[in-house]
């Protein structure tokens, strides 16, 4: 009943709008990678080049500490923590460092689009998040991002991640690691 009454009212009440809406005309920046790195840092993330990592295992130990559960979905890094076929919340909650592949990065806001993971909660529940990204997949702005998404179709679930989880709910003091990852590192290859 609600449906018909709402649609009926909208039909009766909707205003007449004559202005035309055309696709937003935008210019692409030139140094997208440079701007992307600056943006990720501005939103509290870290950026590193794949070349500066000789050995993933050592690098993770050095950056995050020893004895951690490292879960990876990136081919070049084998993690030490695996998930069962039937994944439980408790199991997910033990991930210390998650390494996922980003599809593309957006220079204007440092966001990385992520849509492939064994479980949708992984980029949020992990204590620390690492996203890998091909340097050639960095684009200028959100218009290009949606053009990209239109080409492949919006996935069942996907997320732009820009920096670590944060809050400023207590007197506007910025604190990282509200509920999601306490740190985010983007590794550019």
């Amino acid at each position, binding site marked *: 009943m609600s449906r018909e009454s709402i649609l009926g*009212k909208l039909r009766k009440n909707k205003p007449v709008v004559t202005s035309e809406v055309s696709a937003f005309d935008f210019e692409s920046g030139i140094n997208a990678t440079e701007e992307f790195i600056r943006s990720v840092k501005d939103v509290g993330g870290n950026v590193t080049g794949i070349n500066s990592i000789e050995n993933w295992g050592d690098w993770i130990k050095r950056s995050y500490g020893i004895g951690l559960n490292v879960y990876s979905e990136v081919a070049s890094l084998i993690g030490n923590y695996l998930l069962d076929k039937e994944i439980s919340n408790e199991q997910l909650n033990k991930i210390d460092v998650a390494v996922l592949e980003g599809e593309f990065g957006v220079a204007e806001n440092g966001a990385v689009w992520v849509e492939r993971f064994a479980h949708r909660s992984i980029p949020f529940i992990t204590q620390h998040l690492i996203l890998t990204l091909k340097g050639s997949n960095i684009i200028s702005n*959100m218009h290009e991002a*949606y053009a990209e998404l239109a080409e492949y179709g*919006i996935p069942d679930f996907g997320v*732009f991640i820009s920096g670590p989880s944060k809050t400023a709910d*207590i007197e506007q003091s910025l604190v990282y690691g509200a509920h999601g990852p306490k740190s985010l590192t983007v590794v550019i290859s």
Partner: protein
Amino acid sequence: MTDHYESAKKFLKEPSKVDWHDETLWWVRKKRDRAAGEVDEWEELREAASNIKERALAELDSNLMEFEQKAIANGITVHWAASAEKHNEIISDLLRERNISRVVKSKSMLTEECGLNPYLENHGIEVVDTDLGERILQWKEHAPSHIVMPAIHLKKKEIGKIFAEKLKIPESDDPQLLTETARQHLRGYFLHSKAALTGVNFAVADTGAFVVCTNEGNADMGVHLADVHIASMGIEKLLPKTEDLAVFLRLLARSATGQPITAFTSHFKKPARGKEIHLILVDNGRSAILGKRGFWKVLKCIRCGACMNTCPVFRKAGGHSYHSTIPGPIGAILAPHYDSEKYGSLPFASSLCGSCTAVCPVKIDIDRQLYAWRQELTRGNGSQLLVSLIGKALQRNKLYDRLGVFLSMIQRRFPWIVNRVLKAYTQSRSLPDVPAESFKEWYKRNRDE
């Protein structure tokens, strides 16, 4: 009627807090300016956003039907709620059918508007707010005072006190420590909740997908770990095309907090295997506002809160002084649609400076609507009569002169009468002294010299 002027008094009792509130929101406003300044095409984006929204509202009926069809095909269950009660009932039924007695919830002004939390609590369902600010408010039993920064009316000492009381920890006013404490406290709820409630920032008709933005990641923590995701959405949030999201996501966080985008911008199209997504399309008065000439553009609002941060009245009086779900300038033109008696003083809680309109990312004519509401609300009552009498007096030279002499005499001899009549002005300021003669008298005396 609850008078805004009266209800602002409570907040104004603590001048140091008022100053802090004022300065902090102004600082957020400046962050917004900086973020907007970094985008060359900012004004074009605002114009595009305004046009897209106006067009989308003019086609809302057909857009909603397209959205519904696509969403259902994707496996999302779509519900329609004409009223707040219907919305609450749908959620309560969904939870009871599944024997769920506790839910985690992320921030949603719509559920505040519908009074969902008290409704569910009355039906034996515990609601755990997971946005840090909202969790604090839930403990304090306060309503949000700002739509983006819900606990901006509280100082960290007060927050530390409530943490100590509720979580039995030593009192602290360290935001880092308090946030970490809340993280650990709420993680247990995330891991064990069967259902999660969220709002919706945008939905798109062409794919049937919807978008939820958070900085904390709490919406995603809730929904991905639960079996059932229930999303509440005001019907005006619908955009026609996926590419429209680019325009709005570039504007939203920059306008709200000066961030280029929120930390997490999640796109939901299909439920994960074995899980459910329910989306509730809520009207609750929106379709009626759509039919009001001169007022319908208020529905373009994307709830960024920029108009609050810039408003001199909001910054000084605090969000609770508006006693409406959505406070500030946008709340002042929205709330009277729901109850023009109860919220009738809100359009007057403004200097009509127009700063709200200048920062609005979707170009809502807030100041013009504030003025239009004043016309509407005073039609045929005493104050409009008074204004028309003053207008007549100003047109008549002699009457004006006599009135001037008379009123000066009153103010000189019986200042208490003036102070009583102009109480709102005089209780915190003094009226200027009455000059010995009027300018006209002075001119007459001096023109020949």
